[in-house]
């Protein structure tokens, strides 16, 4: 009997552990370790003229206190530039401990290692830092303008990088366009805010010359190779484990945050395990943010709403440093056209330094801004021309695939949409929404004096980028299957979906497939969990490795059963001869037979030993030419380019004009990420994504004062969206397989977040009959837009 789990709602195997408190997080390791704590700059921008640590050194229980002066060799250099680019005019990354200039409030200046975190914080209070405060660049507009305060002392302006690209002939298209508009759209800074903060625990074993690091990271493989380089150690002696990680959303893949270097460094220097678990305040002040952008769009439209030309000049707030180079604004620029065929498109992006926490990808990564800009453009053009915006969308859709957008993708290649069916997607959304009935209900509500509005948002999501991922698959003598992928899960469901793929291929029970993720001792090569790439890239690697193990198993079985390898069938955890189910060998026994050694214990061990003797009886060697012991393979999958999911959202909102509260009456999602491995997991990803999207649309923003002090660095003031704020999400799917990979899948991790700001802005705009060109919209702004209060 063959079973198929691909596409089934298989319950997540990690949930039992995670929901019953049995998860193992970074903070759970090395309970006896010493604890680190950091002095962080009080000022957004200052010269550091002296740090007096004597009083801190004297606190009982303090092991040592370090400043930049204690660092040498590679540790004294600036931290790596993760994504270099020749468009980067001023690559700037920070030192692990600030050398003589602090460029954001929160930048680490000194490190204390003490018996425990309490003592470490006592010591922090006794460290005296001499600052010479400098003017700070904080506001993005201002920082990009003339005579701005400088974010870095050695620069003459705040321009980190500049990219321009054009496809078609934009000037000619504008000249011919009957309608031309100019609009400005803003999105504020926000942050990932995983529930588990960052954390690093390091142990250096001097006798064995081994470094073991537990790191709440999304990319343990890169941390391992980086540390090996930095310490000048053989990579085989350095291992990094990302155990259970409580959310990431992008903020945990920086390579390297200062603490990721300093904690292992201190552990080796002091000869004791050292642990640092970031607290929430540190997370606000010392872990990356995202989102802040200002777009100036110039739009040329035809009478029927077709976008004839689009120019977007935008500013991107890169914060104080740019370890991610220009990747974020490049993603924005490449995916700005969304599902629309823009023949004439030009952008100019300027990445600007400010004296604020550095920015790097946060779920959506530049795309929520793109969708917001494009969807506002569609709405405004429709409004100006008195057209139904759904018709305008349909008119502008890309209809043929593959589709070349005409600008560069984040991986450096061209942006090419592999596949899609946008008219069908929109139709599926509208069917779930019941557009006609909804419009009637809106008319009735408005007649009653209620303030309601309907908004739409569309997006594409480039996912599954390279360079590669790998997987190791092996069949164990007890018939279980071990699978390892290099990078950790932060709660997605890698253990479940990879097991589904393997169980299908080998026809073993799902429960017998055990997946390990994020342990470089199991698989050393890999890139990381980010950019909605794991299911696509690692998932296809799992398929390749399983296919190879299958080939090995068939070869061994064929020899034992004395048939051709093509004549064996995998079923019920065993291999049998096609058409003769009674001539079969369980996979476990086959694994033993393939490894002619003595497993010794258990009845199957004897059987296995006998089986391997069969090889001799047949006059063969136990390991024929080209084979190796065991049924095991490690394979890598490297895609040629990304694959593009897409979808449409609709929101029906009601506004309380007395308080500015926006109530989401209905939230409908259409989503297409190609073939779906596990619908429940995909729905979960969409739900979480929509939640973060609603947070970004209505609640969450990082607020800085004029001097560059963060004004809301607590969960009391940073309004992270909670379950209580969530509407019910109605979700419908289509499946347009990707032709680019064997599984036909596309990534889904960020999909839910991308169009939410666009959708909510359009709904509020519809309700108030006024443009909504700033996100997030607070209740106060809603009232201001509605003309109920003066803008402050």
């Amino acid at each position: 009997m063959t079973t198929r789990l691909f596409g089934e709602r298989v319950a997540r195997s990690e949930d039992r552990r995670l929901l019953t408190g049995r998860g193992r997080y970074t903070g759970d390791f090395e309970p006896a370790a010493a604890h680190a704590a950091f002095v962080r700059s009080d000022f957004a921008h200052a010269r550091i003229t002296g740090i007096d640590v004597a009083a801190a050194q004297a606190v009982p229980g303090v092991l040592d206190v370090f400043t930049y002066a204690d660092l040498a060799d590679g540790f004294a250099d600036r931290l790596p530039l993760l994504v270099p680019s020749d468009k980067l005019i001023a690559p700037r990354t920070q030192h692990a401990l600030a050398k003589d200039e602090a460029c954001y409030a929160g930048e680490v200046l000194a490190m204390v290692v003490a018996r425990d975190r309490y003592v470490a914080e006592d010591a922090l209070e006794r460290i005296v830092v001499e600052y010479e405060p400098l003017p700070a660049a904080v506001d993005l507009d201002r920082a990009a303008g003339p005579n701005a305060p400088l974010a870095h002392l050695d620069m003459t302006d705040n321009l980190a990088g500049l990219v321009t690209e054009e496809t078609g002939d934009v000037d000619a298209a504008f000249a011919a366009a009957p309608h031309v508009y100019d609009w400005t759209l803003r999105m504020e800074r926000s942050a990932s805010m995983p529930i588990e903060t960052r954390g690093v625990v390091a142990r250096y074993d001097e006798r064995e010359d081994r470094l073991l690091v537990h790191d709440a990271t999304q990319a343990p493989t890169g941390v391992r190779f980086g540390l090996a380089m930095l310490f000048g150690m053989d990579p085989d002696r350095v291992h990094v484990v990302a155990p259970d990680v409580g959310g990431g959303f992008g903020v945990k893949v920086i390579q390297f945050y200062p603490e990721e270097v300093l904690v292992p460094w201190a552990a080796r220097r002091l000869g004791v395990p050292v642990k640092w678990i970031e607290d929430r305040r540190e997370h606000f002040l010392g872990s990356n943010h995202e989102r802040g952008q200002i777009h100036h769009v110039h739009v040329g439209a035809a009478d029927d709403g077709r976008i004839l030309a689009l120019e977007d000049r935008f500013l991107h707030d890169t914060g104080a440093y740019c370890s991610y180079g220009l990747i974020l604004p490049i993603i924005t620029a490449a995916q700005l056209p969304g599902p629309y065929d823009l023949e004439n498109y030009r952008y100019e992006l300027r990445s600007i330094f400010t004296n604020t926490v550095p920015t790097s990808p946060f779920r959506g990564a530049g795309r929520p801004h793109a969708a917001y800009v494009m969807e506002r453009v569609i709405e405004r053009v429709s409004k100006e021309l008195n057209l139904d915006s759904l018709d305008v969308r349909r008119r502008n859709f890309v209809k043929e695939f593959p589709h070349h957008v005409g600008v560069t993708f984040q991986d450096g290649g061209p942006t090419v949409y592999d596949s899609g069916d946008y008219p069908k997607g929109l139709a599926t959304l509208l069917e779930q929404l019941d557009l006609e009935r909804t419009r009637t209900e809106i008319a009735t509500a408005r007649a009653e004096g209620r303030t309601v509005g309907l908004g739409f948002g569309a997006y594409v999501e480039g996912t599954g980028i390279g360079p590669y991922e790998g997987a190791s698959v092996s069949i164990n003598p007890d018939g279980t299957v071990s699978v390892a992928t290099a990078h950790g899960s932060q709660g997605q469901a890698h253990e479940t979906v990879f097991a589904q793929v393997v169980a299908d291929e080998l026809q073993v029970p799902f429960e017998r497939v055990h997946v390990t993720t994020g342990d470089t001792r199991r698989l050393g090569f890999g890139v990381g969990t980010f950019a909605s790439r794991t299911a696509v890239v690692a998932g296809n690697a799992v398929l390749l490795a399983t296919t190879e193990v299958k080939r090995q198993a068939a070869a061994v079985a064929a020899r034992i059963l004395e048939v051709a390898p093509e004549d064996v069938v995998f079923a019920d955890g065993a291999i049998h001869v096609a058409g003769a189910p009674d001539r079969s060998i369980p996979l476990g026994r086959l694994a033993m037979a393939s490894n002619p050694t003595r497993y010794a214990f258990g009845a199957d061990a004897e059987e296995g030993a006998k089986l391997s003797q069969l090889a001799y009886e047949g006059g063969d060697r136990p390991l024929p030419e080209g084979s190796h012991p065991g049924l095991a393979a490690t394979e890598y999958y490297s895609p040629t380019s990304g694959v593009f999911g897409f979808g449409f959202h609709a929101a029906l909102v009601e506004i309380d004009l007395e308080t500015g509260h926006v109530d989401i009456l209905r939230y409908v999602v259409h989503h297409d990420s190609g073939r779906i491995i596990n619908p429940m997991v995909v729905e979960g990803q969409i739900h979480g994504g929509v939640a973060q999207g609603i947070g970004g649309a209505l609640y969450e923003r990082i607020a800085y004062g004029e001097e560059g002090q963060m004004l809301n660095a607590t969960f009391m003031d940073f309004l992270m969206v909670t379950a209580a704020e969530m509407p019910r999400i109605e979700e419908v799917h289509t499946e347009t397989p990707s032709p680019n990979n064997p599984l036909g899948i596309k990534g889904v991790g960020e999909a839910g977040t991308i169009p939410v700001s666009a959708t909510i802005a359009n709904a509020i705009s519809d309700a108030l009959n006024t443009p909504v060109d700033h996100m997030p919209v607070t209740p106060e702004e809603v009232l201001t837009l509605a003309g109920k209060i003066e803008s402050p």
Partner: protein
Amino acid sequence: MKPAAFEYLAPRSVEEAVALLAERGEDAKVIAGGQSLVPMMAFRLATPAALVDLNGVSELDHARVDRDTLVLGATARHRSVQELAGLRERCAMVAEAVGLIGHPPIRNRGTAGGSIAHADPAAEWPALLLALDGEVDAMGPGGRRTIAAADLFRTYFTTALAPDEILTEVRLPLPAGAVGSAFVEVAQRHGDFAVAGAGALMIVADDGSVADARLVLIGVRDTAVRSVAAETILRGASPTDPVLDDATNAIRSEIDPVSDVHGSSAYRRRVAIAVARRAVTLARDRAHAAVA
């Protein structure tokens, strides 16, 4: 975010607690539910040298309705008040207000006494105390004294309690008769401190006029505040919609909200008027229902 070291003291009686507090002096602090104090200690905004824990003082842990008075020991949890049978029917304003304090874990630990002693201008308990003309008992080295609500709240996080005094009991008289009341607030997210909130209570006379009216506001100035202007307009009037409009508009002169990261003063004013109007309307409608 780890507190500085402190001495922990666990008295078993009020007397012992008062003595410990007096002995340790200015640097000692009482801890009740810890829901306000512990976060401040974690940020080292508060660094008491000693904590006198009231949780082991069983005489302070009670909550009951005594005839026409809600009587709460200092360590009565928000949750214990929510669980009092019949409270919602007796005084909806109290039940609704307590349900709006934070989230279940906070209500399970936080106390009425702690909230009143803490005197956050956006907190619900001080408003209830003011609206119901309640009083508290305080015990210090000099003995016990009773402080009326109107004399208790001075300004932001400041009360008439002396540093060596412990608040021991809270008493809230619950009006009887054709009474309706409500507590309405706007918070940014469920469970957040209010942007602005209003508690209203109304008693209607047999002729339909307002026999008594109370309106209290939170989040609008340095302490919770009774709106004398609104109450004056309402008392004796017929509570028609225009009268309620007049009354709630009258709060303008009595509120002075600050601007902060969550909104401007203008925004808070608008919200305050909106919640006041809603609370007064609910109180009236409920009072009418109580007559019927």
